[in-house]
């Protein structure tokens, strides 16, 4: 229920999550424009109109592999840069969300959020950097020396090989191990991001400057009351998964129609609209995390004096 209340509260701040969604889409636009421009030139008068609409043929992709490779590299570079900007934007918007969660004055949403975003930006940058370090540590644990030595070497006694998992006796064991590794990693990353959210909320709630203090306090709080702290996030995750599943079904159906060459630009526009709606809903859900987390933090503080 707390998750739904948080969802409703975030819904009232639609200008803030709408702005976040617009920014995300804006950052995603340059590679799309790069592709549109290149494809328009590459197709030019060389293909019958609509011939590659449903499927970029094997021959086209092979014959254009060099410019496509350059385009891919340019797009990846932009996407990488945009990822950095998106993370910084995430830091900025988080400041707004925490302000909105704890500051219930009657000022406009945008004014309060903007003030919070500016106020907390550098503190949250430090939280972000700490998050990256913890993620790197977790990645190292799950994929590098500890995993290879302890799990593959000591426990499973797999010999060194190009693919050590082939030392297992069946593909089923290998799949299970990979899924376990992926699941462990995903759970760790998700917990890390939850703690980062609570760290930001604690910093805002207590108006402190220490990212480390925020983080350690958040970890302690989650360890102390795991169900209470994580339940709303899990519920919101489930809602987001549901939204994405529906969006996936809609997009797949539209793409299948395009693939069968039965649809035109309308289907493309419908796909784009789905993308925009999903981006907006996901930004809304992110706001709901902060609203729910703030409620949990208040209860925790009341109960434990945090």
């Amino acid at each position, binding site marked *: 229920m707390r998750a739904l209340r948080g969802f409703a509260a975030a819904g009232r701040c639609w200008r803030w999550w709408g702005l976040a969604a617009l920014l995300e889409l804006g950052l995603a636009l340059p590679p799309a424009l790069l592709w549109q421009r290149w494809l328009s030139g590459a197709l030019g008068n060389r293909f019958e109109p609509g011939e590659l609409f449903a*499927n970029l043929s094997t021959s086209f992709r092979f014959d254009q592999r060099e410019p496509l490779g350059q385009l891919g590299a340019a797009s990846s570079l932009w996407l990488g840069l*945009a990822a950095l900007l998106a993370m910084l934007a995430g830091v900025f918007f988080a400041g707004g969300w925490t302000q909105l969660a704890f500051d219930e004055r009657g000022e406009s949403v945008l004014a309060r959020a903007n003030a919070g975003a500016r106020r907390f930006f550098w503190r949250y940058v430090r939280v972000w950097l700490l998050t990256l370090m913890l993620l790197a540590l977790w990645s190292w644990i799950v994929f590098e020396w500890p995993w290879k030595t302890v799990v593959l070497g000591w426990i499973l006694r797999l010999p060194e090989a190009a693919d050590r998992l082939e030392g297992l006796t*069946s593909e089923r064991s290998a799949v299970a191990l990979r899924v376990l590794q992926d699941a462990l990693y995903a759970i760790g990353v998700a917990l890390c991001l939850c703690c980062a959210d609570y760290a930001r909320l604690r910093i805002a709630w207590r108006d402190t400057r220490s990212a480390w203090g925020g983080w350690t306090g958040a970890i302690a709080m989650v360890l102390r009351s795991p169900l209470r702290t994580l339940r709303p996030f899990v519920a919101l995750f489930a809602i987001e998964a549901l939204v994405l599943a529906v969006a996936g079904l809609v997009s797949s159906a539209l793409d299948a129609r395009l693939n069968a060459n039965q649809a035109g630009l309308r289907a493309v526009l419908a796909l784009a609209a789905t993308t925009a709606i999903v981006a907006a809903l996901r930004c809304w859900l*992110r706001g709901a995390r902060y609203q729910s987390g703030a409620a949990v933090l208040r209860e925790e503080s009341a109960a434990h004096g945090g």
Partner: protein
Amino acid sequence: MSIRKAVPLGGSLLGLLALAGRQALGQTPAERPFRPEYVIGVRVDPGEKHLHGEERLSWTNQSKDDVFDLWFHLYWNGFANNRSTHLSESGGSLRGTKISDEWGWQQVTALRVNGGDSLARLEWMAPDDANGQDKSVFRVKLAEPLRTGQSVSVDIDWEARIPRLRRRTGQKDDFLFMAQWFPKLGVYETGNGWNCHEFHANTEFFADYGTYDVTIDLPRRYAGHVGASGVEVLPEKQDGERVRARFLAPSLADRELVQADGRGPLVHDFAWTADPRFVKHEDVFRWTDWAGRYGDEVNRTALALGRGLDELAGRDVHVTVLLHPEHADQGQRHFDATCTSLFFYGLWWGTYPYEQVTVVDPAWGGGAAGGMEYPTLFTAGSRMFSLPRMRTPESVTVHECGHQFWYGLVGNNEFEAGWLDEGFNTFSQTEAMWLRYGYNPATTDFGPFPIEAVRQLAPAGGGLADWFALRSGAQLLGANWAPLHASGLLDYWRDQPCASFARQRDDPRSGDRSGYLADPDTDPVDRPGWLYADSNSYRTNSYRRTATMLRTLEGLVGAEKFEQGMRLYSERWRYRHPYADDFFNSFQEGAGVDIGWFFEDAFRSHATIDWSVEVDQKPAPADEGWFLEPDGTWKRKESAQPKDGENGWLPQLVLRRKGEFCLPITLELGWEGGERETLIWTREQQLRQAWWKPLAERGACPKKLESAVLDPTQRYWLDRDLTNNRWYAAHDERTSVRWAERVLAQAAAALHWFGGIGG
């Protein structure tokens, strides 16, 4: 001593000259097969990685030569150490794994020729590279020369250490795949001597057609879980903790099926496998069922060959699929793919003559045994979670079963002309796959789980992009401390593929072309496998380039003549050992064409081709200036600016070729109103001049040119760039928007994920 064509070849030029000289002396279609007869008993102790074998070989000299010695392969000695020719050529690694403690070897412990001890006369040979450390070939001198028509009996006992399964043969846990596992006689070629090459990294195998009677002695847990070339003689015999399975290849019934010319089903190798975990899927391929499903193709083939439907009818074949438990649900898919080969290959190249074919799904970690052919038995390869429309295991199954025809029945020398089976089989596989399965849907894996769609954008592209996308981090303590690691679940959440990816389907014929053009001119096709520049060139030339050339050949001569030429070749050389010229000659005779130049360009040169069409079209201008009137006077004309096309159109059309592989090519012009016009740019024209302006003489055309398309029916697949083969007056605006939207969707999903890391 016999004349050996396998003299030390050393340098590649010398090798080529020696081989080229021999090709004209290869086996003739009329020559009788030598028919070695093997009776082998083998005992295997998997726990000890030990194999003990006893072999009796009978061989009759059917050549016109006196034979002074016998040459044998001991292939497993290629895995004995890092100095063997096989491991030297592969850089000490097999399929990506450095070999350090997984060696295998064979040691002959007794050798009797016609009952006389001949072990002392065993002599190691290295005919290809004079590598003294290579022990994959030996010969034994005969006490007396073997005259034409005389027979010899050889008894060989040997011990072997079974290698870890890293390349085609060996052991992985309880899974045994025994290929090239016994002392195998080379091939004697009249006038050339023994053809018995060392075990090279890139080449496969060559042996004569014969019969095998093999008894396999294994621990009892293998009872009922043994598969092999030929047919098992049931029941298996159990004796205490051991079980003995006996196989005859070909089966006794098959050996009775002798053709009118005296040739009958024989096999030229014997492989076997065992694993207590095998799950059997058995079914019968029924020719009539498939002929009913693909009646059009049957009729087309019958018409092309001028034969009745009864003459083309094939036999029913018992199919056994030996699967590992995690692929047990894929038995029907393996079976269906096997039937695809048995039917289409049988229809096109002559019926499969044996009563049995066995399909082996290698064990986990034994994938190096996968994708390989042996007579009446082949290995496929699959994975868990293969989607119904994925071509795994279908693609490899169709290919390896196809080798029952190209390799199994037409037994070319895989050392010296591997392309004659790999390339022919790749061509046939692609055609069969196209008819049976159509397009290949592309998939993307998230961990072990595939989805049927592909991304347009890479999540990181190396360098700075990796840093920004958190896929690269500080190098410390020998590790890359990147905040994010590739991971199935997280990557799925980041990409949201169902909402942001696009479906993609591939034409398998284009896949052959792409494979060829990835490396089109490093080597000519026709050369021994170990003399290609590298393994990449070997694969390109032997598989995809040959397939592309055959498809182009079909385009050149037409489907009917192609069928006739290929059929004559496949029938004439069934149970025989053809070389390149045998194919060229048989094809031309069967198809009734004289295209030696094509074979030279396609298989013995580096020639490539890129045709292109360029069009620049303008409205014809109105008359302007002074014009001589019929009455002899000059009159000035100055018209108003005409509407587009009012005075016709001036299309500047230029065809060009870059490259020397000239073939006659069709140009189709599409004129306003739907009128079509077809022109031919002949080979002779192309040889004279690298460009052609077919409309140069016409002046203004009354109708607007709407399209100019070279090779409109895609008869040829070897063009280096098909993008420039066509021109359309209309400009495509929608397609770029459609694909840009997918890029937007994927980027938006990824950026939302990254935003979440920031806050």
